[in-house]
């Protein structure tokens, strides 16, 4: 390392108040610019959704529409069964989230705190499949689902998402951090293993459960590929494939497509804004699922 960059006296200069203030201001300007760039597509989506279809590609772009065409937002519901798409997606997302959280925390307790022969081998099995991309085995899975009559049923999407190894892995990592002495004390007090899971582990793992719930909910809500492969009937479509169909059928109604896209983003945005702290902390600690 070069030592001639700064005379050592200057190196520990006490922060110059003016310079540091300018630095701070520049920093915030940079942040605001970055955020603006990140949000531009959403702003454009919102602005286009309130325009007339020929105004969308006006030159130069007008960010605030001349007149706000709110009727676009009522029009989309008549053009496609959006409400049904929402209902279907909500059913799937809620069911998947419940099954996933319950079964994973259940299994994770066993993997983290109970001892039995073959535990580590079994767990390795789980972990190994996390590395296998879904695309590699989706075709046999599709055939299996079709054989047991799940094709074109909402249940297919539920089953598809609900038993991921990722949930078990996440919960196990968290449970391992809980002191085993707690479980042992409870065992001596006569609590069964099920009791320990319900009364000690579950209440202690609220943060991990919150993370898993949001991951699963948002993942299921936004899933496109699964429903695309499994669902063909209009009445069982989820919002993502429904929106895709809306786009294809009204391909030149740019304003309506943008309005429908805007609406499709609302549920996830609400969930994210309410629980974003858990979501972000969960990623920071587990750093998984790309």
């Amino acid at each position, binding site marked *: 390392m070069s030592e001639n960059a700064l005379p050592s006296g200057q190196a520990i200069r006490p922060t110059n108040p003016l310079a540091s203030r300018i630095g701070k201001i520049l920093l915030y300007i940079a942040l605001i610019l970055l955020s603006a760039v990140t949000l531009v597509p959403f702003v454009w989506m919102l602005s286009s959704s309130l325009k007339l279809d020929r105004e969308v590609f006006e030159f130069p772009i007008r960010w605030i529409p001349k007149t706000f065409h709110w009727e676009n937002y009522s029009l989309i519901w008549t053009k496609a069964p959006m409400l049904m798409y929402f209902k279907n997606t909500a059913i799937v997302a809620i069911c998947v989230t419940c099954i996933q959280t319950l079964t994973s925390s259940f299994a994770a307790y066993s993997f983290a705190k109970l001892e039995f022969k073959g535990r580590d081998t079994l767990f390795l099995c789980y972990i190994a499949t996390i590395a296998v991309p879904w695309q590699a085995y989706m075709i046999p899975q599709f055939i299996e689902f079709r054989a047991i009559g799940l094709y074109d049923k909402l249940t297919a999407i539920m089953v598809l998402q609900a038993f991921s*190894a990722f949930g078990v892995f996440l919960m196990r990592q968290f449970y391992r951090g809980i002191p085993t002495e707690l479980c042992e004390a409870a065992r001596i007090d006569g609590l069964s293993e099920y009791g320990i899971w319900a009364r000690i582990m579950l209440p202690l793992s609220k943060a991990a459960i919150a993370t898993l719930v949001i991951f699963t909910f948002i993942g299921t809500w936004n899933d496109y590929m699964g429903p695309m492969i499994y669902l063909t009937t209009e009445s069982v479509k989820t919002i993502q494939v429904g929106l895709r169909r809306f786009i294809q059928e009204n391909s030149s109604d740019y304003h309506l497509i943008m309005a429908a896209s805007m609406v499709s983003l609302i549920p996830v*945005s609400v969930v994210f804004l309410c629980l974003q702290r858990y979501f972000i902390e969960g990623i*920071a600690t587990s750093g998984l699922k790309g």
Partner: protein
Amino acid sequence: MSQYQLNAEAKRRRGSLERKKTLVALSFIAPNFIGFALFTLIPVIVAVFMSMTEWNGGSLSTMKWVGFQNYARIFEIPQRYIDRLEDPNIFAILGVFFEKVDIGIALKNTVTYTIITVPLTLVCSILLALVLNKAVKCAVAFRAILFFPYVSSTVAICVCWNFMMMKNGPINQLLMFFGSTFNKTWTADSNMAIWAVIIVSVWKSMGYYMVIYLAALQGIPRELYEAATVDGANKRQQFFHITLPQLSPTTFFVSVMLVIGCFKVYDTVALMTGGGPGRATKMLVTYTIDEFNAFKYGSACAIAMVLLVLVLTVTIIQFRMEKKFSAD
């Protein structure tokens, strides 16, 4: 005698206790494991075998074992292309493979996409994390904004970006303002289509990796910087000699995640370009789905196996390297 009986009794008891414990433990795992085994484990195993069969999805009896023929077929370079070559050396033949054969094109596009997307996302997410790490006020709000693209639905944002990148769309307008002469729909142009996909991918995922980097940045001991300041290192030196090396395990982890994610790319491509124009953005997964939709289940599985091999290779490298990292 009685001693022996006692021992046996104790052993039996311990044995049955052990068995009971195992049963309880398994009962916890069962609900998840049954679903997991049925819908993940078995399909994974079947996929390997299916890639060696020929089947169009009709009745099971029409399924035919063909060994490695599917692989041979997808990797085959049609003779007419080789005949047309003036000098059929290995490079020329490889050239034909990556220009004309579906799997070659898919591999080339997937690797190109990966090579560009991974470093771009890395740089963007590190920069965002560095800036955000400095800000004290409103950090949570900025973090949420920068993260938001990651949680928004791919269908909605892809159609939005598609419109923005259309002829006379806002992006082309902006570029023309800065003197560009390009004014075509990005996804209809065979050179720009892949860039459209890359831009959207980077924009969507940088917030996610930023969060991982933020956590890593906060884990760097403050003393390191203090010591460096005392030694007279300036900010730039501190960045290159402390921050970056301290972040390297995270960078390694993030790159592996990104590479695997890029190999599996489908949604963004399918929704923006559909693999086109022509075959310009045909990826491995796009190719699998095309074959699947054409009811060629055997070769669809074979292509999926190529993807699997790629992903597993990266994972094994990660495992090896991780051991090295933790040994250091």
